[in-house]
């Protein structure tokens, strides 16, 4: 039961982060096309996007976790 809940949570989390990244990419594209100067906004969106990937997809927090056991 716990395993099924964990699986569904991971799946949902993946989609949520993906949608957030897609929305930020669209915003980035529109800012690049319509706003001048666009660079400060582009830097901000890039940092947020990179942060989401590093935290949720690359699981950087695992570095501080010592109880994971898989090989």
């Amino acid at each position, binding site marked *: 039961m716990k*395993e099924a809940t*964990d*699986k569904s949570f*991971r*799946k949902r989390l*993946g*989609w949520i*982060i*993906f949608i957030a*990244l*897609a929305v930020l*990419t669209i915003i*980035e*594209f529109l*800012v*690049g*096309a319509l706003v*001048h*100067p*666009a*660079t400060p906004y*582009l*830097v901000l*969106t*890039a940092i947020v*996007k*990179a942060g989401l*990937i*590093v935290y949720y*997809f*690359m*699981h*950087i927090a*695992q*570095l501080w*976790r*010592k109880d*994971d*056991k*898989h*090989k």
Partner: protein
Amino acid sequence: MTTVSLQHGRYNRLSINRLGLWLFILSESGIFAALLFARFYLLGFERASELNQTIGLIITSILLISSLTAYRAESAIAQGDRKAFLRNTLATILLGAVFVIGVGIEWSQAFVHFPPNQLFGTVFFSMTGMHAFHVLTGLIMLALLYLNGRQGAYSAEDHWGPEAVVKYWHFVDVVWVFFYPALYLVS
């Protein structure tokens, strides 16, 4: 006589592997950061109007989708779901291959508008070339994962290989998160 153990104090083998991979990623980041800074140092906030914005957006979206499939592949094998792992790994490989083809199309147009001997061409081909090379190495590793997975390798208890390759793939995506606006969108 003492015995050598894989347990180093409170750090187990997995923690050490993860730390090693992150240090590798950090060192790779230095190369890409140097290219990114060189782009702004040489060109300021200029961008080439001939760049194909449609291709840029499409290949960015494809790499983004491949990050989702890679994440799902890793989650699947961590749960012991081999079928989903293989399906998502294959999808990631196909999306990565489409990304490389997209870069190839962009290059064929770029050679006409700003060849590598011009300043923007040097910057554009260095950045996209180095990134595409990393995508290609990621694709080779994903293909090895897929082939090993088909032969029964990896499980919920043994999936450091998929975890490491997927982290590398996400890193390649993070690099593009910075390269895409730097090349296509800044003004």
